[in-house]
């Protein structure tokens, strides 16, 4: 027993001690708020972590090679995404804390004819990948931005920002047409979807977002936020702004992060189930390879900052089908699907995901035929 204790202290000492302190201090979760959804107490978080640390290396099936490989894939997708997610939630927290919703409404043109392409171009300014842009787009909508413009930003930011374009140029040296084609096809996809959304009834989206707000905010900080900006002489000043920032960032992190983890698990599972060699043998047929590359973009859930290198490493596929891979990836993949459904609602994702998937494929194929040799 002594050995166990020792081991787990060296393994995860900081994490566990803090978690343990919390769970022992709180044996009774206390009175709950009247709500359909019951809050998850801290013990639900701390106890599994303690058990996992104690089980370290002791449970046989956890050491099966396939389980270990799945774990490696799952952990690497998650760890790769955390820094980008943190960047995204810091920005979204900053938007919540310091950017008044009136300002967003004033800056964004009223008519979607202008606001959608403007939002698409604004996406160029956010260096990051898709994990960061989901919480930011959600925050922009909560703060009063037109959904059509925010969704255009959601689609364009991870696809056409400078980091992504530069890594595409590095991955396809000596062939600038790939970078041009990627930019054009992704931008066209984003604004097409934006305009399409602006002509639709936005009900499913806003309904879900309001619902989230009512259910999740016990202390409704968003309201403090609005009050604060409406009355600039509000005496809580800086400390209130700071707590709004921390709360919004923390909230968006666990929200988007939770769906990210679900998506990472799905992607790791798909990779284990579908061997790459099967994909390689179907690559010969053009139509089939476009379909396969679109599905691969969907299933592999690779970060948009790195997908160009993966596409470059699949020379058996045609250039157009690899462009489809590059355009579809930032628009839709398993982890994004999970994050979109979580942040914007299931009803939203059911309409938005298949449409953006198809628009991305068509736009990539057309641009590929025109721009690529």
């Amino acid at each position, binding site marked *: 027993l002594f050995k166990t204790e020792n081991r787990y202290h060296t393994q995860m000492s900081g994490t566990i001690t803090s978690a343990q302190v919390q769970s022992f201090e709180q044996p009774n979760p206390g009175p709950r708020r009247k709500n359909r959804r019951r809050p998850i107490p801290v013990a*639900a978080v701390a106890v599994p972590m303690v058990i*996992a640390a104690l089980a370290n290396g002791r449970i046989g099936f956890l050491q099966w090679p396939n389980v270990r490989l799945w774990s490696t894939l799952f952990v690497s997708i998650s760890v790769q995404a955390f820094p980008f997610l943190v960047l995204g939630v810091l920005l979204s927290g900053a938007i919540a804390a310091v950017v008044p919703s009136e300002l967003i409404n004033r800056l964004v043109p009223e008519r979607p004819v202008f606001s959608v392409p403007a939002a698409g171009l604004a996406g160029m300014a956010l260096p990051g990948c898709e994990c960061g842009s989901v919480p930011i787009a959600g925050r922009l909508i909560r703060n009063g931005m037109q959904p059509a413009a925010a969704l255009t930003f959601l689609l364009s930011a991870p696809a056409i920002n400078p980091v992504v374009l530069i890594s595409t140029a590095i991955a396809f040296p000596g062939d600038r047409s790939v970078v041009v084609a990627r930019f054009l096809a992704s931008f066209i996809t984003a604004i097409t979807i934006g305009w399409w959304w602006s002509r639709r009834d936005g009900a499913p989206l806003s309904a879900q977002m309001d619902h989230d707000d009512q259910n999740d905010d016990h202390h409704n900080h968003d309201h403090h936020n609005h009050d604060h900006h409406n009355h600039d002489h509000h005496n809580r000043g800086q400390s209130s702004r700071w707590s709004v920032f921390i709360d919004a960032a923390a909230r968006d992190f666990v929200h988007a992060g939770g769906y990210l983890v679900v998506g990472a698990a799905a992607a790791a599972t798909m*990779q284990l189930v579908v061997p790459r060699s099967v994909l390689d043998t179907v690559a010969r047929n053009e139509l089939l390879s476009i379909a396969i590359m679109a599905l691969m973009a969907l299933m592999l859930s690779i970060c948009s900052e*790195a997908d160009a290198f993966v596409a470059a490493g699949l020379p058996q596929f045609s250039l157009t089908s690899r462009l489809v891979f590059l355009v579809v990836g930032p628009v839709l993949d398993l982890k994004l699907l999970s994050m979109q459904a979580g942040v914007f609602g299931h009803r939203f994702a059911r309409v938005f995901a298949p449409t953006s998937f198809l628009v991305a494929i068509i736009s990539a194929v057309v641009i590929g035929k025109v721009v690529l040799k």
Partner: protein
Amino acid sequence: MSRVARAVIIFSIGLTCGRLVLSGGFSNFVQVHMRIPLAAASIVMVLIGGIEILNLLRTERNLDKVWSAPAIGVVLVAPLIVLTSVAPTGLGALAASRSDSLAPSQTSADYEPLVADASGVADIRHSDFLSRALYDRKESLKGRKVRLTGIVVKDPTIPDGFMVTRFMVSCCAADGRPMKIAVRGVDKAFDNDEWVEVIGVWRPLPEADKPTDSEPQTSPVEVDAISVAPMKDPPESPYETPY
């Protein structure tokens, strides 16, 4: 989810990522150049989680009463649980045996001659070796002693050796593709996943097996072993990157 549960999750993820950076274990999952972004993200997560925990301890008598975050956040413990209970390492023999070797693209029309060290052996990356073996018309590898480092992957088609393997990773280990070079004429036995340093000489492919534009490489690139030595410490970065 209660607000303190949320804070504990963020704090724990921050600590765990920070530990991965400090121990160097992060390079099993992501590229070495992610060290600084990951360290920065860890610090931010520890700070946000820590500040929240301290604030709640100071102001609330019953911590679990205050709640705010959506319930889905609880799955964020999954990576932490997997990291401690399975303790996964990097990609290994199983991942390597699941797919064919990556055939790197032609990196240049005119390969520079190899540069050897004092003992006449040239250090070479797997991707460079494979690219030269497949595309170099001037055969810059011919007759040269090279040093390859990688993991042992046993293969039934190579009774007198193994595949010395390194993964090409573009983003994170999830997109890793194995680069396998068959080592022939090894007289000692090695275990799968053991890190080894192979000194050997390229064995050119028969003319019929050379790749063409329409037919990619199928038979493995081979070296004749001169010496194979186990390595005490694996290299800082277990993977190769395309740039």
